[in-house]
């Protein structure tokens, strides 16, 4: 039955494509910086405007960069887990405080604890845009060359940590 062969082949090709389409999250935007140097920036720190936190600080160690803000509900949700991570001394966590208000951000950290080695204060949101952030929270894994290895969007928790970050960090530290 030769005339059924072609349609059959076409269907067999199309079905896996459809299945892939159903499984992928259409709203997830891949970061454009995977495997590339983290975007350069230099920001005043949240705690002390006379000090700066810059992309240079990210070199020479494996670290996390967390984009957060007090207006972001997910940031509040993930904060206890970030605190837990910070206490375990697994990895230094840096932050970009995105489009926020300094007193509000400082009181957030005072109430919930400061998980960050340093927080850059990105008042007008330019650095967030440079990082390709489209929401908060976003968490970037940075290698010791200062390159972006992975980006996670949404509130981070232990399950995602074990699943997405732990294996990647193990690879980097080797």
């Amino acid at each position, binding site marked *: 039955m030769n005339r059924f062969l072609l349609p059959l082949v076409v269907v067999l090709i199309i079905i896996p494509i459809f299945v892939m389409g159903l499984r992928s999250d*259409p*709203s997830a*935007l*891949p970061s*454009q910086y995977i495997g590339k140097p983290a*975007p350069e920036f230099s920001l005043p720190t949240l705690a002390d405007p006379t000090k700066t936190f810059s992309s240079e600080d990210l070199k020479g160690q494996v670290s996390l960069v967390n984009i957060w803000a007090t207006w972001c509900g997910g940031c509040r949700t993930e904060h206890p887990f970030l605190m837990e991570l910070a206490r375990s001394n697994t990895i230094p966590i840096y932050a970009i405080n995105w*489009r926020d208000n300094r007193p509000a951000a400082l009181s957030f950290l005072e109430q919930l604890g400061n998980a960050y080695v340093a927080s850059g204060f990105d008042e*007008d*949101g*330019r650095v*967030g*845009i*440079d*990082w*390709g*952030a*489209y*929401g908060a929270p976003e968490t970037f894994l940075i290698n010791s060359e200062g390159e972006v290895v992975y980006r996670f969007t949404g509130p981070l928790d232990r399950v995602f940590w074990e699943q997405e970050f732990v294996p990647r960090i193990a690879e980097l530290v080797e």
Partner: protein
Amino acid sequence: MMARLIAVLTFLSLSVSVLAIDSEQAFDDPVLQARYEKLVAEVRCVTCQNQNIKDSNAFIASDLRREIRRMIGEGKSNDEIKDFLVTRYGDFVLYRPRFEGKTLVLWIAPFLLVLFGGVALVRVVRHRMALPMDDEPGSNGGLQ
């Protein structure tokens, strides 16, 4: 009656400009303003993905509008501005993706599909035309 209708329509048309997200004129120069309006209509809001940044009141949309205003003000070309956006957010951020390697399939797939359909159509029609017609005398519709 007519006067009332006109009054209602007038007020309705006024309300549109009140609700507009990006109502402030960005540039005095009409050429720059036109470029700005065209660009913001073509850039996707990255958090509210089925809207352009012109119609979105998400803060990231207003930030991107501000960046586009800044770059136009600095005399950057449309291509440079699109480069800025694509470097950060990928091709997805442009409603009209550029014609290049990664987006090639987006641009040529519709034409390929039409071509494929056309070829299939011609083949089917030719095949059917070659068949004897049912109501032709002599073929008698397969009846004995």
